[in-house]
């Protein structure tokens, strides 16, 4: 009887894994840093063409979860990930999956703008170049222009593509990093507190950009700002002490959450 139920659950899950409205599915994801466990059996699904916001107090594991989605945790020596994460139904931790290809499909934007200390053009063209996306110089020019256009940066930098990317303002640098991520045509973009180092005006621009990108990309964003989560996301997941507390539509999350802890956190009682 019990066996039957488990099999049924498994089957249902498998079906869900193949459901294309879910771009990425995390099942029982746990992360260990050496002996220390940072994530406890997180089950979280990321929907196609949706902005999913991850919120929670510092050290709750939201960035850790984000980094499991494109295996950036691999670069940390003693980090171990268990559970299953799929991208379009394929287990991304399967040995047959190449991490380089995965990261081309799941791009990342970091907390601090980190353009390469090279020209703006080289910043954008680096990704397409290593993945062989452009056949000619004209192709590359077109990719660079399109990426900068989409990141809303083209008009500001079109006359100084050969100048250093580090010479831009903080907000421009972050949009350059987003353009750089877009340039390799990813399917999912992960953003780790992309606005925490920016002023309100630059933040507004990046938020607007996230809004526009949603039609073409699936976006997962970690943020410390509740207002930002409310503004940019359609789905919100709340983490606390390495556990997923609640995942819901953003509107419901901020008006009538199911979990008391979410309520408390959003009201500013802890965290």
């Amino acid at each position: 009887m019990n066996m039957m139920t488990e099999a049924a659950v498994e089957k249902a899950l498998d079906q869900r894994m193949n459901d294309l409205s879910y771009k990425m599915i995390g099942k029982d994801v746990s992360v260990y840093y050496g002996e220390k466990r940072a994530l406890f059996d997180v089950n979280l699904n990321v929907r196609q063409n949706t902005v999913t916001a991850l919120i929670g107090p510092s050290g709750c594991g939201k960035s850790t979860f984000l980094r499991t989605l494109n295996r950036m945790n691999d670069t940390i020596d003693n980090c171990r990930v268990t559970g299953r994460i799929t991208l379009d139904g394929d287990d991304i931790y399967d040995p047959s999956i190449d991490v380089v290809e995965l990261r081309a499909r799941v791009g990342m934007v970091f907390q601090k703008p980190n353009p390469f200390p090279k020209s703006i053009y080289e910043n954008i063209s680096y990704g397409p170049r290593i993945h062989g996306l452009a056949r000619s110089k004209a192709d590359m020019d077109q990719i660079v222009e399109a990426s900068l256009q989409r990141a809303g940066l083209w008009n500001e930098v079109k006359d100084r593509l050969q100048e250093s990317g580090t010479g831009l303002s903080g907000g421009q640098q972050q949009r350059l990093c987003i353009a750089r991520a877009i340039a390799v045509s990813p399917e999912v973009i992960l953003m780790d507190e992309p606005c925490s180092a920016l002023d309100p005006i630059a933040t507004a621009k990046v938020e607007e950009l996230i809004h526009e990108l949603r039609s073409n990309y699936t976006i997962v964003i970690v943020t410390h700002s509740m207002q930002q989560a409310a503004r940019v996301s359609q789905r919100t997941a709340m983490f606390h002490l390495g556990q997923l507390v609640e995942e819901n539509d953003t509107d419901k999350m901020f008006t009538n959450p199911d979990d008391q802890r979410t309520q408390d956190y959003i009201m500013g009682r802890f965290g």
Partner: protein
Amino acid sequence: MSQVVTPTATVPGARTPRRDIGLKKRYAAERRFRAYGIAALSFGLIFLFVLLWSVVSKGYTAFQQTGVTLAVEFSEKIIDPQNQRASNPQVLLTANYPVLARNALANALGVAQNDRAKQKELGQMLSDGVRSQLRDMVVADPSIIGKTKTVTLLAAGDIDSAFKGQINLSVPQENRKVSDQQVGWMNKLAEAGALAKHFNTGIFFNGASSRPEAAGVGVALIGSFYMMLIVLVLSLPIGVAASIYLEEFAPKNRFTDLIEVNINNLAAVPSIVYGLLGLAVFINFMGLPRSASLVGGFVLTLMTLPTIIIATRAALKAVPPSIRAAALGLGASKMQTIFHHVLPLAMPGILTGTIIGLAHALGETAPLLLIGMVAFVANFPTTPMDPSTALPVQIYMWANEAERAFVERTSGAIIILLLFLIVMNVGAILLRRRFERRW
């Protein structure tokens, strides 16, 4: 829980606590510390100045050389009395050329041919180097035999020293190397304009010689050049590859910790130990030739490697992790991340470390003593397998010589070595400026 805790400082009526306790003391401590710093700096600068002044004041005269300009008659009677040169070219090589020079000098000073004692003293005024100088002229162009040409001949080392005022002429004649007669001739020639100081190109191009006026650092320069080339070609790739592996790829465990500790220790091993190692491994075991700059280069490579590895690892560590994350996040492989982004950013640090390592190797003497590079090498080495010396070893050897003229040459060679070191260090600074980027 709802109690409000009032900070005591804001209790009305309480006196504001004094904030200026010990303020004067703190400022005094700061002033004292600055004074110590300035004192230490001045101390260092004074010593640097004294060192440079002593070297330069002793050594600058080495770049000038006394020469005698004379009308030399290439007399057939002396060079080829039996007129055999057509059938036996050997004659031109073995002819008694110094006599030509002595006769020219005697002519200029009006000394009689049959005054043997004076003739002998005259001969001592000219360097033995005139033999090869005149021979080379005749061999190059035998048609000058029988003609008279104006030639600038090298004065002997003692005359050179006396003319530069380095020999005390007030002591009795028996106690110095130049006689009163020679000094008289010297002054007479100088008045006539025949004896004069010229720029000394010989010190750069000549090989070893027991006659100071003909000795130069040419062989040592070539030896040092070969060794620097070998050190650069070997230690830069090996050192950088080792550092990249240790820093980026190697797992962090006890074994790599042990390697790291050992590299740091190797950097502190006395260089003479490397000389012993080189002697045992390269010469005794591998059978490479002694005194060869190849072996010297190998030994100095071993010595330079730890320096380069430490500098490169520090430079790699200093590259912000955000750059690595950016490249990895784009789907660059680890190798691409390192070679496209991390290494270019670490380049200034690597180059600086390498040049400082090279400069260190250039000035190293002790290990070279053990592999036989302290040698009298008059022939120019054509390959790194040939015997040669090195600049610092040449300085060491000249410092052991007794003649007054070698004292100035020792300092002159030190000046040459210091110039090379300054050029290398300036190069390191320029490279760092050129490659330095902001992030």
